[in-house]
C-alpha cells in the first residue's frame, strides 16, 4: 500500500488533475445555478497531519457549513464541499433571492437549510460524477450529509477510516469562487481518498511506475 510521504511528482500531478476535473465540473454546475461566472484555482495536493487538515480550513473551532459524501465502491473516500457560514448564507440568498436567511442561531430557517443541502448536493454530485467518468472507477456516493458545526468535529469524520492506517491524510483541495465580486461565494472542495484507494486511482489513470 502506498506510503503518502513519498509520492512522485507525476503522481501528485495526477491527483491535481483529479481535483481539476472534479472541481471544474462543479464550477460549471455552480455557474448554471447562480447564472454567474465562476472561477476555480489550481488544485493543491497536500499530505498533512490531522491538525493541519483543520488549519487548512481555518482552525478546529471555526464554524463551517459543509455538505459531504462518503464514497463507496472501488475507491472509497470522502468528499467535502465547505463554506463559511456567511458564504453559505450568501449562496442561499443567491439561489432564493428575497428574504434574508439565517443558517445559524435562533432564527435558523428550515427552508434555507434545505436549499443549501440541495445546492451542496448538486455541486458535490457533479464533482463526483466527473471524477468517476474520468477515472472510469465505479463510485457510489452516500446520501449527502449537511452539517453546520466546528471544522474539527466535521472533518474528523472523513479522517476516521484512514486514521486506523496513517497519521497523515492526503488532501486534494480546490477552491472555486465567483468572479469579480469581493463578497461572493468561495467554496472549498476537499477530496480525502482512503489510503487503499490511491493505488486504484493511479492504476485507473495509467500510472504504472507505482509500487
Amino acid at each position, binding site marked *: 500500500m502506498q506510503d503518502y510521504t513519498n509520492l512522485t511528482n507525476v503522481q501528485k500531478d495526477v491527483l491535481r488533475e483529479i481535483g481539476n476535473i472534479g472541481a471544474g465540473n462543479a464550477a460549471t454546475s455552480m455557474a448554471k445555478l447562480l447564472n454567474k461566472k465562476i472561477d476555480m484555482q489550481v488544485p493543491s495536493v497536500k499530505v498533512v497531519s490531522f491538525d493541519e487538515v483543520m488549519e487548512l480550513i481555518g482552525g478546529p473551532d471555526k464554524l463551517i457549513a459543509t455538505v459531504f459524501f462518503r464514497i463507496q465502491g472501488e475507491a472509497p473516500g470522502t468528499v467535502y464541499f465547505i463554506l463559511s457560514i456567511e458564504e453559505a448564507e450568501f449562496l442561499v440568498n443567491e439561489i432564493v433571492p428575497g428574504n434574508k436567511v439565517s443558517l445559524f442561531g435562533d432564527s435558523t430557517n428550515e427552508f434555507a437549510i434545505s436549499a443549501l443541502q440541495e445546492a451542496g448536493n448538486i455541486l458535490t454530485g457533479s464533482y463526483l460524477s466527473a471524477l468517476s467518468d474520468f477515472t472510469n472507477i465505479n463510485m457510489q456516493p452516500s446520501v449527502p450529509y449537511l452539517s453546520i458545526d466546528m471544522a474539527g468535529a466535521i472533518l474528523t469524520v472523513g479522517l*476516521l477510516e484512514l486514521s486506523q492506517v496513517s497519521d497523515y491524510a492526503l488532501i486534494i483541495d480546490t477552491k472555486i469562487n465567483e468572479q469579480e465580486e469581493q463578497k461572493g461565494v468561495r467554496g472549498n472542495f476537499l477530496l480525502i481518498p482512503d489510503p487503499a484507494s490511491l493505488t486504484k486511482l493511479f492504476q485507473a489513470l495509467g500510472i504504472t511506475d507505482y509500487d
Partner: protein
Amino acid sequence: MTDVKTIVKVGIADLNIVRAPGIIRTSGLGSCVGVVIYDEGKRIAGLSHILLPESSLAKQAEINVFKYADTAIPVLVNKLIDDGARKYALKAKLAGGAQMFHFTSNSDIMRIGPRNSEAVLAILQDMCIPVIASDIGGNVGRTIEFNPDTSKLKIKKASKEEQLI
C-alpha cells in the same frame, strides 16, 4: 507575578499536561473524546484528545499511542504521576463522543463517538479513576478548556452556549 495565563493546546490524537495558573484546551471535538485527568490538591491536570477507542483497530506497524483510548490514558496517568500528581487523588472529567452524522451504512467506524466514550469509561474504571462529570454524546462539536486552579471544565458548543462542569 504576571497574569498572563499559559494556554496549553492539545491537538488531535495528542495529550499534554498543565499546572495552575495555566489552562489546557482542545478544540473541535466531534466523535473524539477529550479526557481530563487531574489532581485537585496539586492543581495539575492532563488532557488527552482521543480519536479511536482501541489500539487493536490499528493497521499500522508503529502506532501513535496518543490516538487510542486504551493506550493514551495510561500514558497520560504516568506522565501526571511523574510530574507530582498522586495516583489515589486522580479524578476525571470528559466531553465529546458525539455522533456527528447518522449514517445509513452500519459500518462500525461510523458509531465511533459512542464507542470512544465507552472505551474511555471502561479504562478509567479499570484504573480506579472516578469520573466526576461528563458531557458526552449528542451530535454537536465541542471545544473544551480545563482550569486546574478551579478544577472546572468549560465546554463551548457551536451554538455558542457555554457550560462549566
